[in-house]
């Protein structure tokens, strides 16, 4: 691991764009997958760019319309790439990508993983009609946008990428002068080879800045979990989901919801009329076939151990159901129970595919 200085040219986003451009121009990679701004600047979306002249990335745009983890999965799960690609992603995106690799739904062959420090993201509409001063990317880089961050970002599990080929760092950097390139692997080294970069003496500033931001998020999280503790029990759950319109957007947006075809989009729950009649008679009344509670609990059952707390489910909900209010706690506690932290160690097996012969002897009690 070595830190290098990447001098800021015009501004932060264009400096990173320039770096990616250089790799493309010099043939170190054949394409980049990164957040690219729309021409109006009102949105950004993951794009795969091979023509350096079409490169218009802004990897710090505080918006996460979809996870790049999901995109890489879509693009590599049939077969991995045979030519080199650099993928630039935030911590939660990379964590979901690691889970997708374990689920055999993504292939990282020939993929350079470039992490970026994440100062957080806004809801899509907050980004596109940013109510604050100036431009949203600058605001978030200058730490002036905390009030606009999504709840998942305020409570972010970890805004810093640990394992990648390289991390583009803003924490601990003087953004008037330079960014920090934290080069972590030989692959990372091969990307910067031949570039005229100055080694940055490690004065502990970055580590301190990273520790500080982690502390802030952990603190937020603790308060958040306390506040939401009481959403428990049948009545509260039904109330929590009462505005759910069963659109399944939360499932579609979730990077780790792994079924290729959702059971709840199939016809397994479609019964003959007489069965519904029997059900109505047994219960007195039931919510007509769209049963949201079973959908949500089953969805949790599938993805909760891999949940990276990106909050994309909540962002996708047309009814503004604050899904993270319950998911954050459940994910943390369920993962703890299985001693599993999703998205960190690519070698750690998914809890539901391994077993030990002597374990959890208490399930019967």
């Amino acid at each position, binding site marked *: 691991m070595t830190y290098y200085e990447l001098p800021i040219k015009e501004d932060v986003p264009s400096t990173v764009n320039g770096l990616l451009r250089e790799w493309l121009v010099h043939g170190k990679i054949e394409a980049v997958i990164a957040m690219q701004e729309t021409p109006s600047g009102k949105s950004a979306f993951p794009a795969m760019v091979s023509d350096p002249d079409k490169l218009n990335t802004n990897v710090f745009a505080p918006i996460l319309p979809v996870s790049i983890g999901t995109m890489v999965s879509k693009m590599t799960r049939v077969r991995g790439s045979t030519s080199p690609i650099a993928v630039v992603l935030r911590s939660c995106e990379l964590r979901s990508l690691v889970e997708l690799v374990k689920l055999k739904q993504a292939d990282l062959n020939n993929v350079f993983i470039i992490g970026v420090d994440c100062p957080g993201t806004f809801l899509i509409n907050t980004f596109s009609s940013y109510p604050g001063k100036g431009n949203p990317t600058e605001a978030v880089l200058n730490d002036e946008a905390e009030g606009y961050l999504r709840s998942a970002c305020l409570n972010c599990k970890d805004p810093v990428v640990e394992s990648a080929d390289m991390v583009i760092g803003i924490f601990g950097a003087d953004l008037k002068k330079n960014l920090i390139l934290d080069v972590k692997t030989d692959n990372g080294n091969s990307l910067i080879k031949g570039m005229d970069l100055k080694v940055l003496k490690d004065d502990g500033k970055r580590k301190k800045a990273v520790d500080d931001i982690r502390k802030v998020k952990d603190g937020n999280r603790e308060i958040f979990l306390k506040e939401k503790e009481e959403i428990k029990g049948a009545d509260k759950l*039904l109330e929590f989901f009462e505005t759910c319109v069963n659109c399944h957007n939360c499932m579609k947006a979730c990077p780790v919801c792994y079924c290729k075809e959702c059971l709840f989009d199939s016809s397994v729950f479609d019964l003959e009329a007489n069965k519904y009649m029997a059900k109505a008679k047994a219960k007195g009344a039931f919510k007509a076939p769209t049963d949201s509670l079973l959908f949500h609990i089953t969805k949790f059952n599938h993805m*909760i151990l891999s949940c990276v707390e990106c909050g994309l489910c909540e962002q996708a909900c047309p009814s503004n159901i604050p899904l993270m209010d319950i998911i954050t706690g459940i994910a943390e*506690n*369920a993962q703890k129970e299985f001693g599993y932290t999703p998205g960190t160690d690519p070698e750690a097996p998914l809890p539901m595919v391994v*077993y030990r012969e002597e374990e959890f002897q208490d*399930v019967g009690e």
Partner: protein
Amino acid sequence: MPDFEPSVVAFLCNWCSYAGADLAGTSRLKYPPNVRSIRVMCSGRVDPVFVLDALKEGIDGILVAGCHPGDCHYQSGNYKTNRKIKLIKKLLDELGIESDRVRFEYISASEGQKFADTVTEFVFRLKELGPNPLKEECQ
């Protein structure tokens, strides 16, 4: 609620627990009649959604029983089910729905007595818990 009789659905592995239940019956062992048994070819066949759906429909308790460690006819169905049930129970705890309504046991073909005891204990516990709160809800 003194006269509350809980409803129980039991998913029983064909190779062991189902035969165990049968033995309990033919040996005329006494156990509460609250159980509806569903035979599965392995406890590993029990998808968590079966358990969750039964709970949602208002069933008071769900028992899943499979072969003892080392005895599963498909090598690891029982171990994996153990983990799956563990996760369901944790999830229910987190959601504030009594996880004691779900139970997993290893019961062999010769353990008629264990089957009867398990059901007796389970029904006793379910009586303590009272009716499944989801039963009366319009959902």
